[in-house]
């Protein structure tokens, strides 16, 4: 029982760490590159505009999709590793 509990706690901790990492990337591309840090990226030209604009209108969406699939894949491995999957 105690083992079950510490196992479950470790699983949850790993999950929260993974979520935190993913959300940092999520915030970096959208609020960072696309909005707040756009002036820093102004020097990188892409198709008639700058990289920040690309992140705002396309890049962030590609990143979001990648993040969800990465998370789903990682979580499947965690489910298996901790024996907590279905």
């Amino acid at each position: 029982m105690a083992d079950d509990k510490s196992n479950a706690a470790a699983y949850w901790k790993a999950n929260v760490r993974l979520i935190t990492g993913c959300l940092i990337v999520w915030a970096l591309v959208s609020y960072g590159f696309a909005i707040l840090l756009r002036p820093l990226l102004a020097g990188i030209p892409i198709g008639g505009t700058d990289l920040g604009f690309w992140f705002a209108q396309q890049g962030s969406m590609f990143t979001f999709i990648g993040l969800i699939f990465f998370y789903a894949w990682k979580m499947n491995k965690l489910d298996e590793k901790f024996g907590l999957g279905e």
Partner: protein
Amino acid sequence: MSQFAINLLFVGGSFALYIGIAIWSRAGSTKDFYVAGGGVHPITNGMATAADWMSAASFISMAGLLATGGYANSSFLMGWTGGYVILAMLLAPYLRKFGKFTVPDFIGDRFYSSTARLVAVVCLVVASVTYVIGQMTGAGVAFSRFLEVSNTWGIWIAATIVFLYAVFGGMKGITYTQVAQYVVLIIAYTIPAVFIALQLTGNPIPMFGMFSTHSESGVPLLAKLSEVLVELGFQDYTADVDNKLNMVLFTLSLMIGTAGLPHVIIRFFTVPKVADARWSAGWALVFIAMLYLTAPAVASMARLNLLTTVYPEAAGQVENYEDAMAEPILYEDRPEWFRTWEETGLITFNDLNNDGRIQFYNDANPAFADTAEDRGWAGNELEVNNDILVLANPEIANLPGWVIGLVAAGGIAAALSTAAGLLLAISSAISHDLIKKTLNPNISEKGEMLAARISMGGAILLATYLGLNPPGFAAQTVALAFGIAAASLFPALMMGIFSKRVNSKGAVAGMLAGLLSTLLYIFTYLGWLFIPGTNMLPNTPDNWIAGISPLSFGAIGAMINFAVAFGVSYATEEPPQEIQDLVESVRYPKGAGGAVDH
């Protein structure tokens, strides 16, 4: 065959398909009705979620907003897609594990309080009903344009169709109908975009064409667009914004509003396993992105097309824009699509300087007033409604009649699929959470389904009535729906999963504080219950607190919700042990089983 007959064929044909699917997959039990029997494949569910999510606002209005706002309106793109990241990581898998039918179910059980359940029902119903009104209005406009009936008739036709397949099919019917609607709307959106991208850039993939070279001028498309805009006194398409705080908060509000909207969340109760809920969110975003990546391309290309239609000389390589802008087209030479849309009143021309030519520029820009005067322009003569951009696209690109029919069917599919999903969320909140859980726990399964169908019928009638007599402002109502979801439901759901310490008093106080502060801020600038003239401050950036617009306040409301909930919870007792065990159990997929009704 006339265009009217083609439209009728496409719209009628697609309806026959949806209704056929609804009848074929008729719901037999409450489980079928609420969560499609819990047996929907993650990719199927992703596609249905995409159709559920993409409403008339996404299909019809968004490209128009991007075209006029340029970079500044990128918030819509990031906000309405980024929400799925939060949904996949912070809500969907755990709510699926919890395994109940509705959002108030979770809030009621987790916070062991029927007050919390009722507050959640109220938030859900208010957010969903305001959102449905917009869909009904959108469907009405699309019907009246393409079927050449009055707006009133358009809304009634829409209401009847939604009633038929949502009421009889329930979630099971809706899921498969929405898959069909997704296919219709994505094809309808993509085909005209591909042709326009080919015409302008030679690249058949719109999202790449947007960042490639404009064939006629040899300049990158976005650079060309910005050049022409600036020469007419408009803002550079890619110009940065000054008020970054507001842009961040607006994007955040749309993201957490997306994650907190009940009709999207309940879709994740339909998949067989917890892991499937995570994959399903990813697939939903893939299907949504297929439209959302095309939308900015449609926006920039359609804007350029419109400008070069008026100023043909500005389209090619231009040495001197002063000469190129000197001779806009003669009104009598306007293209055919221009004439068709003029009949709807959505394009209007008013020859202010009586030269028979169309002057289209930004007359609200004081820095441009001298240039305009030198050119002999007496004011902007052309008004173009944002919302026609996507619908008029096939005509602008000279595409055949069947493409126009397809776009009509697509726009209507977008409005109806969202309306149906919202109505299902409303009816399950009323029949399940209000009647079965609160008023009459002994109701039979049959009685509960009857109550669900009756409340759905009632919700359709209310939405139709409000759609016929709209409070006057689609954008504000939609923003209110997002604000309410972001400020009330999302924080309660997230804290319910990620904190064992938040108790019923904290959750109820948090939801009420988030909801009321958001409503207060919105009503201060937009009028009490949106009644014009009752606003306490004019809705202009100078009056906003710290430059935060009422549309962006949902994010602040959510922060207030979190703060109040934590404050009150830590000041009062811990939740009981069995609730802490419940929180523990939703965190692990093991032993999930199907969505059950106790």
